[in-house]
C-alpha cells in the first residue's frame, strides 16, 4: 500500500469540506488515486469530475509542487508520502 496526501485549495476545499485527506492506494497510478477519492468523498467528488468521469477542465493538479497537465496524469507514478494538490481555476487579480 502507498500512502499519499491530497490537499484541496480555495473553493474546492470549502465544497469538499476538507483541506487535506490521506489516501492509501494499491498502486501508484493516478487513476488509482482518483478511484480512492471517489470512494472517500462520495457525492462531493462531483466537484472534481465531469459527467464523463474525467477531471474537470480548468482544475490544476500538482504532485510534490510540480504542475501536471491534465493530459499527462496517466504518466504519474505516485510514491509513498507524495503530496498531490488539487486546485480550482485561478481567479487572481
Amino acid at each position, binding site marked *: 500500500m502507498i500512502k499519499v496526501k491530497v490537499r484541496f*485549495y*480555495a473553493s474546492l476545499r470549502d465544497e469538499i469540506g476538507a483541506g487535506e485527506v490521506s489516501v492509501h492506494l494499491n498502486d501508484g497510478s493516478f487513476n488509482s488515486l482518483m478511484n480512492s477519492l471517489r470512494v472517500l468523498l462520495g457525492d462531493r467528488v462531483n466537484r472534481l469530475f465531469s459527467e464523463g468521469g474525467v477531471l474537470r477542465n480548468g482544475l490544476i493538479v500538482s504532485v510534490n*509542487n510540480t*504542475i501536471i497537465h491534465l493530459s499527462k496524469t496517466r504518466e504519474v507514478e505516485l510514491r509513498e508520502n507524495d503530496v498531490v494538490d488539487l*486546485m480550482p481555476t*485561478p*481567479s*487572481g*487579480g
Partner: protein
Amino acid sequence: MKVKVDRELDPLPTLIEHLKHSSDEVGAIAVFVGVVRGVSDGGKVLKLSYEAHEALASRVLKDVIEDVKEKYGLIDAAAEHRIGDVSVGEDIMYVLVASKHRDEAYNALIELVDRIKREVPIWKKEYTEKGVKWL
C-alpha cells in the same frame, strides 16, 4: 525580473525605478495596477480575500513572465500580487514591463496581466453585503 506573492506589495515607484535601471535601452515602461472595486453585481463590496498556493504561485508567475518577455522581446518585467484580505480601493496587483519602444510594452502588458489572472494559482473570495463567494 522581480516577482512577489505576499501580504504587502513593494512601493510602485520602487518597482518602476528598478525596471528603469535594468538597462540603458529601456525606452518605455507600461504599468498595470489592479484595484479592489467597491461594487460587484450591484452590491457593495466589503473586501476581497486572496489565497495562493505558496510554493507554486511565485514559480508560475516567473514562468509566465519569462514566456511573455521572450515573445515580445521585453528588456525586463515585474509582477507582484497580494494575498490575504484587501480592502476596497487598495491595490491588489502590480504588473510592469520595460521595453525599447511603447508598442511591445502595451501588447506585452495586456498578455501578461491576462495570463497571470488565468494561470497563477491564486484565488479570491469576495465579501459583499449580500454574502461571501469564491470567484
